[in-house]
């Protein structure tokens, strides 16, 4: 143990005498206090000025408190305080040199969601070894996740204990089912041979005020006084497509003459007949998860029946009082795109639940509107359904079930409530309807003629934002808490403006809310697309543009623009064109799911409404028949049930009589010109253009099929020894030792123009957008100096700062691939290299692979034999079901077959970053650079997401002095740094990839993680390719040199996610196989002379996932990066 760690160990062992007990109690007082000012004290005010010793003492006190506290919210606040201390405050007090190792057992506990055990184990280590970067990061993660787990458990408990829901958790056998289907649904009409159809039509909800995310259940339960939102039920139509707005959500229920549950989602084109009760609980098997969740949450298939192994027919017999009958449930959302931020799926769930509860007599009326008590019940069931489906909306989301405009507020828990004594607020909010006395009909009309609702088309994951908000509110982040109070005031003002009929004022307020409090709380709720649209509206319409409002968790999807009613009609057309053109400009840098859409809307004043269709009227929507009729037609008429036969006859009559178009039926039945074959042709062309090697591809496929290649074969032999490095194995660049000698060397080299930067930007950043296939380098991910800046702009800004400091030019290369080359080239041309003075080069990739359907063996290895974060109980069930479904997909699509069922771009893959340097040789760029600048000797290669990598004279000087060919930068490992690191492998010092480690546990032996930033001595490197500056112009020699070296490096099989987009904003994510060669493996070659620099975390850490952004700003990393940049 070092002396540092000994000191820390002493410090961390409980309360230090020098601390006053009172200062420690301030933390607990803040949590417990009934006094508002004390309870809302910010975390910053508690932490400011505390030493590491005091922070550790505070953490000890809080940990003791959370263990003994029986109150849920007290525990959760303590957990989030603890997480923040270990994530943001304590690491700043720990020396970078004190990296530490992560305890594997603790890590496994975290993955398995045994957070308590993980924390106990980590604290024991901390007490003996002192706080290290590895341990504090793991503690922060464990406390954070435990906080959310505690909250999720409470919501689950509350949902189960709401009166009216409890019985469903007791009824475990179909024979005990206490519901009966309404007799009116079983009245067969012999004349038309039809059964009645119950139709429920429901609006979606629009949030007027943006609640400042206060509709998250946890927040309403923590601070009900601050949980408020004004929302309206609205009918929608797509501008240019639909004649008039209508309730977009429809649910149909009817009795059928087969003892099955038949589920049909018209919009998703999915249909299934369930015969086993267990199938109802398999949410991920098909696209019918929402309908299944509705069946369960409505009590038709009570949740307690999960795993009962009984037949659906038994349940139906009890439900209907006779055998042989079944139930059909159909959903339709009028093609409203996914991600509209209008809570379409929650309201569809509510609509389905409402129809099913009407059908089983659980709400007052079979037809017509709903009572408030019914709506409350349906809302509670919708929450249950969302929890079952592994998703989770806010409590305002069922707003379409309720009529008109209403204020929805959190309520204090009172004696008798299941939440009383556990949380300050109830799970369920209360609704206050704004009648026309309060908001006049004229004001409503005015709003409708001013507001243009749109769907921007962006595909987004709001989940991380909701987590950020929850944590920030619960720890009372200083500026966030002030912003929250401002948002509450704005809501009151919006309410007054609506009552006064002043829509212009509403626009001012919603804009102020968006640019002020909302972006203060979550800067990531806006993006370049939204900002650009607002700017364009202002520039085009001046003061006739009244304002903007954001719908849902973040902008880019559902949004509202308010205009002077006099120009609304013209503005609508202009806005649609502007949306489309802005999307075109940005679609390579931001993830879009589909083209933007403008809506027509009106406020729905009657809420969810049901009608019982009988006789001739008792039919399903036409699009339903487009799904089921082709299947019926493929069978013999006599094999169909009597009801299906009658339906076909009726359909035939309608088509003959001209009442129904027949083209859709023909489209379904007859072959059409295939887009797929066009795509296949384009794919072939693109493969050819991008250097696809069919021979090598077939070789890999054969090896995959035979089992010689695969995820488990990536690993080094199990007898390999993996050891951590010693102090002699690396150069510690986290201290200033030796700077005097090396800095001048580096500075001179930069000033002489001997160094250039190579940024790897050929990959598609699978993790960044979940396989959406946009160019990560161009993603304007964060605001600097008042504007969203992309990764590429940021890297150039760092090179600019260096060039200006040393009064020179720094050549900057971006390597590109088949997907990134053209967009990057276009963007750099459009912005004139962001005003960068030095030369900017693009090095285009010269090879590409074709993705393959993974083998089931690899999928099993990936999902079952390697460690993954286990999800919360219900989400994990859904994920397990999805994995089973995807393995079936791999089997049916053909294991190791070419993956071609997507856009051509999404079927190809880059072949790993090892090829980026050979590409520089192959495409002649290095030769060109050397010719233009013969003094060029060194390259700094780094990943697009290593934001801190800069041409630092300290590092360069050290590299030059060391005379090594390659100097790799490594950083101290933190909990989320998985993927190998610096090790002695069978005695040889080298970087080893995580997927090559013989055992997962080996990773926990390694102190350092590979940042991939590499200092390259050009001449030595050329030597390894058996080249030199002269032979670089000989294409054959270059090719031969690359092939020879490539053969000596391992090929890894990896599983990546790829998105397939379809329908209206729908996205499916598929796992696919691809192969890679990786740059770190150069260190495994015995002749390559390598050094390893341990660098500060902020320099080497990587930005892989947008969910990291918030922490990255809060821990000071963003500020550090900003200090390295010089903007044009």
């Amino acid at each position, binding site marked *: 143990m070092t002396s540092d760690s000994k000191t820390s160990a002493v410090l961390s062992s409980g309360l230090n005498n020098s601390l006053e007990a009172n200062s420690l109690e301030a933390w607990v007082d803040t949590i417990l206090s009934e006094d508002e000012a004390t309870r809302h004290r910010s975390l910053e005010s508690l932490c400011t000025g505390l030493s590491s010793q005091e922070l550790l003492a505070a953490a000890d006190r809080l940990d003791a408190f959370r263990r003994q506290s029986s109150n849920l919210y007290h525990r959760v606040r303590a957990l989030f305080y603890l997480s923040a201390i270990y994530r943001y405050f304590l690491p700043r007090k720990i020396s970078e040199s004190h990296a530490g190792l992560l305890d594997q057992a603790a890590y496994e506990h975290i993955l398995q969601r045994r957070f308590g055990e993980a924390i106990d184990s980590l604290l024991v280590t901390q007490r003996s070894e002192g706080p290290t970067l590895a341990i504090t990061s793991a503690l922060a993660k464990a406390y954070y996740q435990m906080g959310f787990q505690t909250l999720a458990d409470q919501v689950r408990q509350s949902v189960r204990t709401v009166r009216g829901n409890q*019985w469903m958790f007791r009824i475990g056998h179909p024979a*005990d089912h*206490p519901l*009966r289907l309404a007799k009116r649904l079983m009245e067969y009409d012999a004349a038309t041979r039809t059964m009645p159809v119950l139709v429920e039509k429901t609006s979606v909800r629009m949030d007027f005020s943006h609640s400042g995310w206060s509709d998250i259940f946890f927040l309403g339960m923590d601070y009900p006084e601050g949980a408020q939102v004004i929302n309206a039920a609205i009918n929608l139509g797509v501008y240019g497509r639909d004649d008039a707005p209508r309730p977009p959500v429809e649910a149909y229920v009817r009795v059928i003459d087969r003892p099955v549950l038949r589920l049909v989602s018209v919009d998703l084109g999915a249909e299934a007949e369930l015969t086993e009760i267990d199938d109802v609980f398999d949410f991920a098997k098909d696209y019918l998860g929402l309908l299944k969740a509705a069946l369960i949450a409505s009590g038709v298939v009570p949740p307690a029946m999960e795993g009962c192994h009984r037949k659906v027919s038994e349940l139906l017999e009890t439900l209907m009082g006779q055998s042989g009958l079944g139930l059909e449930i159909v959903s339709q959302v009028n093609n409203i795109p996914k991600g509209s931020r209008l809570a379409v799926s929650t309201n569809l769930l509510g609509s389905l639940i409402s129809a099913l509860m009407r059908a*089983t007599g659980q709400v007052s009326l079979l037809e017509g509107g709903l009572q408030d008590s019914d709506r409350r019940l349906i809302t509670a069931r919708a929450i249950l359904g969302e929890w079952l489906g592994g998703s989770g909306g806010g409590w305002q989301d069922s707003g379409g079930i309720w009529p008109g405009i209403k204020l929805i507020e959190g309520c204090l828990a009172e004696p008798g409530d299941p939440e009383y004594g556990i949380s300050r607020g109830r799970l369920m909010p209360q609704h206050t309807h704004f009648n026309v006395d309060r908001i006049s009909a004229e004001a409503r009309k005015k709003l409708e003629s001013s507001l243009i609702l749109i769907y921007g088309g962006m595909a987004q994951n709001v989940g991380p934002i909701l987590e950020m908000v929850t944590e920030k509110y619960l720890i009372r982040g200083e500026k966030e808490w002030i912003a929250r109070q401002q948002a509450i005031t704005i809501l009151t003002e919006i309410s007054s403006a609506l009552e006064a009929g002043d829509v212009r004022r509403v626009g001012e307020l919603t804009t102020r809310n968006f640019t002020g409090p909302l972006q203060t709380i979550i800067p990531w709720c806006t993006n370049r697309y939204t900002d650009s649209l607002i700017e364009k509206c202002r520039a085009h319409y001046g003061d006739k543009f009244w304002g903007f409002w954001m719908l849902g968790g973040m902008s880019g999807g559902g949004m509202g623009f308010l205009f002077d009613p006099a120009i609304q009609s013209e503005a609508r057309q202009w806005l649609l064109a502007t949306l489309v053109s802005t999307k075109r400009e940005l679609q390579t840098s931001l993830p879009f799911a589909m083209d933007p859409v403008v809506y027509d809307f009106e406020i729905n004043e009657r809420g969810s409404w049901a009608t019982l269709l009988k006789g001739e009227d008792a039919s399903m929507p036409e699009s339903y028949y487009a799904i089921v009729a082709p299947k019926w037609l493929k069978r013999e008429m006599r094999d169909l049930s009597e009801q299906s036969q009658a339906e076909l006859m009726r359909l035939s009559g309608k088509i003959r009589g001209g009442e129904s178009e027949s083209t859709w039926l023909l489209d379904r039945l007859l072959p059409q010109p295939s887009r797929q074959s066009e795509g296949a042709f384009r794919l072939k062309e693109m493969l050819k253009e991008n250097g696809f090697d069919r021979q090598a591809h077939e070789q890999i496929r054969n090896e995959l099929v035979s089992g010689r290649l695969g995820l488990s074969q990536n690993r080094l032999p199990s007898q390999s020894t993996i050891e951590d490095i010693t102090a002699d194995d690396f150069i510690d660049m986290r201290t200033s030792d030796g700077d005097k000698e090396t800095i001048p060397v580096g500075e001179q080299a930069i000033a002489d123009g001997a160094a250039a930067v190579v940024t790897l930007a050929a990959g598609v950043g699978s993790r960044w957008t979940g396989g959406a296939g946009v160019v990560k380098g161009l993603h304007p991910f964060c605001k600097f100096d008042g504007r969203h800046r992309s990764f590429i702009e940021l890297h150039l800004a760092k090179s600019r700062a260096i060039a200006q400091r040393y009064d020179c030019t720094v050549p900057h290369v971006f390597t590109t691939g088949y997907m990134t080359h053209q967009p990057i080239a276009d963007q750099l041309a459009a912005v004139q290299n962001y005003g960068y003075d030095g030369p900017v080069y693009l090095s285009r990739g010269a090879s590409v692979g074709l993705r393959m359907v993974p083998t089931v063996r690899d999928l099993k290895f990936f999902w079952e034999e390697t460690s993954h974060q286990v999800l919360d109980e219900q989400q994990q069930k859904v994920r397990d079901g999805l994995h089973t479904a995807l393995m079936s997909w791999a089997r049916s699509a053909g294991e190791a077959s070419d993956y071609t069922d997507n856009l051509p771009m999404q079927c190809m893959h880059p072949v790993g970053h090892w090829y980026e340097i050979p590409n520089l040789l192959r495409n002649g760029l290095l030769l060109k650079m050397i010719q233009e600048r013969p003094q060029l000797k060194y390259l700094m290669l780094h990943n697009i997401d290593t934001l801190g990598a800069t041409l630092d004279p300290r590092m360069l000087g050290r590299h030059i002095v060391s005379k090594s060919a390659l100097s790799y930068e490594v950083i101290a490992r933190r909990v989320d740094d998985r993927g190998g690191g610096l090790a002695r492998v069978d005695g040889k010092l080298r970087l080893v990839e995580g997927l090559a480690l013989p055992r997962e546990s080996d990773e926990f032996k390694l102190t350092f993680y590979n940042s991939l930033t590499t200092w390259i001595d050009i001449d030595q490197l050329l030597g390894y390719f058996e080249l030199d500056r002269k032979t670089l112009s000989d294409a054959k020699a270059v090719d031969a040199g690359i092939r020879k070296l490539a053969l000596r490096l391992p090929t890894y099989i990896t599983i990546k996610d790829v998105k397939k987009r379809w329908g209206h904003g729908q996205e499916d994510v598929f796992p696919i196989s691809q192969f890679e060669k990786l740059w770190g493996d150069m260190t495994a070659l015995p002749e390559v002379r390598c050094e390893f620099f341990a660098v500060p975390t902020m320099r080497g850490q990587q930005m892989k996932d947008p969910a990291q952004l918030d922490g990255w700003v809060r821990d000071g990393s963003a500020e550090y990066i900003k200090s390295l940049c010089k903007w044009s």
Partner: protein
Amino acid sequence: MALKEVPKSLGNMSLRTEKPMQINKAVITAAGPGQTSLPLQRLVDRDGCEKSALEMIVEEVDSAGIESVGIIIRPGDEEAYRRAAGKHVERLCFIPQSEPKGYGDAILRARTFTGSDSFLHLVGDHLYLSRIEARCAEQLIKIATEEACPVSAVQATRESMLPYFGTIAGNRLPRHDRLYEVKRVVEKPTPTQAEQDLTVSGFRSGVYLCFFGMHVLTNSVMNVLEEFSTRYDRPVSLSEAMSEVASRERYLAYEIQGTRYNMGVKYGLLNTQLALSLSGVDRDRVLTEMVELLAHQPNISTSAR
């Protein structure tokens, strides 16, 4: 062997001063759809004597000292009922329900028979077995007589049986184990509604107090039925009338010490017969025959069918 236990009288504790109620009449409803033939079924009673269900119901009524019995029947069923009534036929008054207008209407048809008197009401498709010496009707009449108000017999029932019964919400009366003041009655509630509105303290989750098929009804109940049948153009259930009674006057529910057997459900007759036999003189014989039946049919499984 039934225990000797009679419901405790509230006589000494009750502050009520009204004259005790006299109950000399009973009304049996047997006109419901699917119900008409059930009282005619022949069963073997606890003493091993074969008789019709109707006879057994009348004997139940007899035990409580009732003198005259009115039976609501479908027009045309009288002859069959006369045959089934055996020795009790002379005491029966047959009242036809000319149109099938529901349960409430059926009871209302008996008004010419009951006049303004309180009366015992039983449904014709149930048989009742007491767990104590006093029979079920006797238990109920004793309470009603003392309390001088309408009283419904109720039984703790699992939620899976809610689709078959009227269910009450009420509070247990102080110092009385089995007597409840009824606040509300819901006919065949959903479990959701039952959980929200009909839980009774002292019962486990999912257990509710449901009608036993036996009530003591007063003239005020008949008034409500009359009022409802005039007001609504639809069949009126007894439950909704009783719920109205609960809002207007004192109305009690008594948790009877016995079990009701509904002959009208699937295997209802079989269950009723088994219950009778297993609590009577032929218990050993029936048990032996059941064991033999099982022993000779060991391989029959549901799938084999």
